């Protein structure tokens, strides 16, 4: 029985990412710590209310507590909190926020939020994302892709569906066109604000294939609750085939005049 199994009882949803294991473990640890603190305090309080009720103790003791028990408990709590920070929180944060993965294995994509939909921008066959510039946004070029960037020639978009392969680290460049949104990937235990003008990144490594809903995690206007997308974690082969097909189509469309679509 692991530390985090308490969370299953409490309704924690399915986990599908590598670092999520650590997040859940820490979450479980804090739950136990809180449980011990809360139950301990409650028992002590109930004892105090019972023992020092006016009926049982008609005259209060002017001097009261003289021991150092409270100091010791306080130090104990501090130590657990220190363990929590140094043992769990800092390393986990450093891993997710500072140590981005590198290498050919990494899947790179861009998520662009706008009222009230997500568009996902894929690097295509060359594995390099083309640039975007908000000033180039038009009714056909919805996320402002820079046509002069050679890396962007084989790039393609996927509206509302985020497809990624299982077992490979994935870096998402999270952007917004208008207001602040948040790409909340619950089974990945990952979330990142999409703030206009800010280039924010998050990464995770899916461990399980499946399909989940993506919800917008930052109030973004009257259609906020309809800002839904789908997260599809697929097998490597399936993903490769899909990327190739989409990327080839993109190159074919880009070659002649960009008027067709």
């Amino acid at each position: 029985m692991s530390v985090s199994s308490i969370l299953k009882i409490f309704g924690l949803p399915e986990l599908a990412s590598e670092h999520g294991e650590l997040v859940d473990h820490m979450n479980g640890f804090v739950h136990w710590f809180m449980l011990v603190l809360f139950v301990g305090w409650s028992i002590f309080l109930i004892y105090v209310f019972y023992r020092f009720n006016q009926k049982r103790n008609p005259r209060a003791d002017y001097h009261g507590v003289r021991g150092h028990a409270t100091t010791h408990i306080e130090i104990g709590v501090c130590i657990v909190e220190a363990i929590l920070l140094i043992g769990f929180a800092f390393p986990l944060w450093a891993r997710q926020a500072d140590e981005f993965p590198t290498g050919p294995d990494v899947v790179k994509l861009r998520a662009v939020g706008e009222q009230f939909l997500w568009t996902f921008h894929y690097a295509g066959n060359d594995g390099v994302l083309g640039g975007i510039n908000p000033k180039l946004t038009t009714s056909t070029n919805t996320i402002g892709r820079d046509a002069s960037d050679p890396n962007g020639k084989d790039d393609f978009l996927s509206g509302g569906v985020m497809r990624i392969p299982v077992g490979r680290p994935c870096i998402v460049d999270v952007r917004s066109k208008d207001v602040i949104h948040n790409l909340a990937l619950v089974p990945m235990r990952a979330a990142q604000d999409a703030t206009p003008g800010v280039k924010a990144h998050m990464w995770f490594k899916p461990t399980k294939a499946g399909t989940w809903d993506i919800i917008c995690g930052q109030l973004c206007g009257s259609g906020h609750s309809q800002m839904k997308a789908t997260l599809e974690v697929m097998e490597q082969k399936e993903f490769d085939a899909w990327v190739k097909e989409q990327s080839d189509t993109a190159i074919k469309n880009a070659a002649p005049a960009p008027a067709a679509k």
Partner: protein
Amino acid sequence: MTSSSVHADAAPEADSHAHHAPQSFWSKYIFSVDHKIIGLQYTLTGIFMAVVGVYMSYVFRMHLANPAAHIPFYGVLSPAAYNSLVTNHGTIMIFWVAMPILLAGLGNYCIPLMIGCDDMVFPRVNRLSFQVFFLSTVLLLVGFMAPGGAFGGAWTSYPPLSAKVEYNLTPHGNVIWLLAVALEIVAFLLGGINFVTTAMNSRAKGMKMFDMPVLVWMIVIATIIFMMSVGPLVAGAVMLLLDQTLGTHFFAAQGGDPVLWQHLFWFFGHPEVYVLLLPELGVVCEIICVFSRKPLFGYKTIVYTTFMVGILSMIVWAHHQFIAGIDPRMASIFSLTTIIISIPVAVIMFAMIATLFKGSIEFKVPMLWAIGLIVEFLLGGVTGIYLGSSALDVYFHDTYFVVAHFHYTLIPLVAFGGFAIFTYYFPKVTGKMLDERLGRIHFWGSAIAFNFIFIPLFFSGLAGEHRRIYDYSGFAELTTPHMQSLRTMATHALLVMIAFQIPFVINVIKSLLKGAPAGANPWKANTLEWTADSPPPHGNWAELPEVYRGPYEYSVPGREQDYWPQNAAN
């Protein structure tokens, strides 16, 4: 002290006012400069706004329990109206309920009475403070009648959503909302100056700083925190107003920075939590001493620790922005300060429990509310540990776990603390005792129902349910019967909690009409406010009290009485 001679003249004059009929009502109750009347004006406005705020929560909780259904006393809720109700519920409960009741109402009524002076140092500034506050209240409510509807961009008002009409679709609502908040802050700045100055300058003869009741300390420290943290928000509000009305780009992606607002807002927003917390902790200290007949454990430690809390509270704000794309190295620092601030707060809680230990505890209604506050706040405090750690916060951010967490801190403070204040000071303010039995029904009904509202929401949040979502129907995992039952349970518990306010209303009316006379000191308390008449006249005392000892000399060995008022010569 020259004020005693001034006061000696003022008291008979106040009496004579009563005989001058044409002048009396307006000058005595509406345009009064008396700190007690101003305190009551703040409190009553706060109670009125609490009713408005609860009504809003009733509407959106009813909607969440039964989407798209007709809501009694409202109708059918649209997505835009849902957003503006959620936004204004938060705004009202923080700025128009918690602040006026816990800080302005309590501070105005109690500070001069507790330190033994006849009024605030600047009575007219005090009156202006309430008038500005009243104006801001009217303005906020007018926002609901504005064409396009009231502002619905969350109480945090993040730009660009709040800055541009094309995004928020409330052309007038957003400007009115921002002006109302800015005015409200001006009102509290005016009041705050008075609190600090009065506590420093007008203490009764013989009262040293450490003879002041802890409540006065707490209000003074809270006011200092408020005044230190609010400046950046006012500046931010002016910039946002310019963005809204003149099309400047302070918080726009091109030319400005939307994240700047988040810093300015939370630099105020987090200390604000402690601004609300401290006066409440002060009240709890007073009440548990009186109802356990024991000196406060570690008086000076509490005061010093509170200063620590104040300083630390200024450097925790960025824990609201872990996922906003701030520099990752900053996150760990703010995680650390956030966890550290739990230590001094825990010290204060320990001191309270240690006060109860070996006491002689009597569970009168104010004591029930005070103890209820400690117990419930504990749960709110410990769940903060989850959110303070950056890596866990990423998961919980913007879910109902956060909603449950801050309601578990704020409802104990505002509702439990508010009722503790109300039931404790009702005899002083009105001269009548409240009914104990109705008070107990009110307490137990409300306290139990409260837990059934917010414990389900912890589970919702853990299951990944995000907040501020009008309609969950598109999300299969959030519309399971289990998830819906959690939402429904919270709503039903809210209805029960509202129903349990009926005994309270009956109690107040009944006690005002024919409650037992309270006398000056019904709780046998030591602090100076209980030596004045109930209700205290304009000027508070015929002759200002002189202080001989600290405020917590209960159950002193060798004395027959178990209390020893601060002004008793022996």
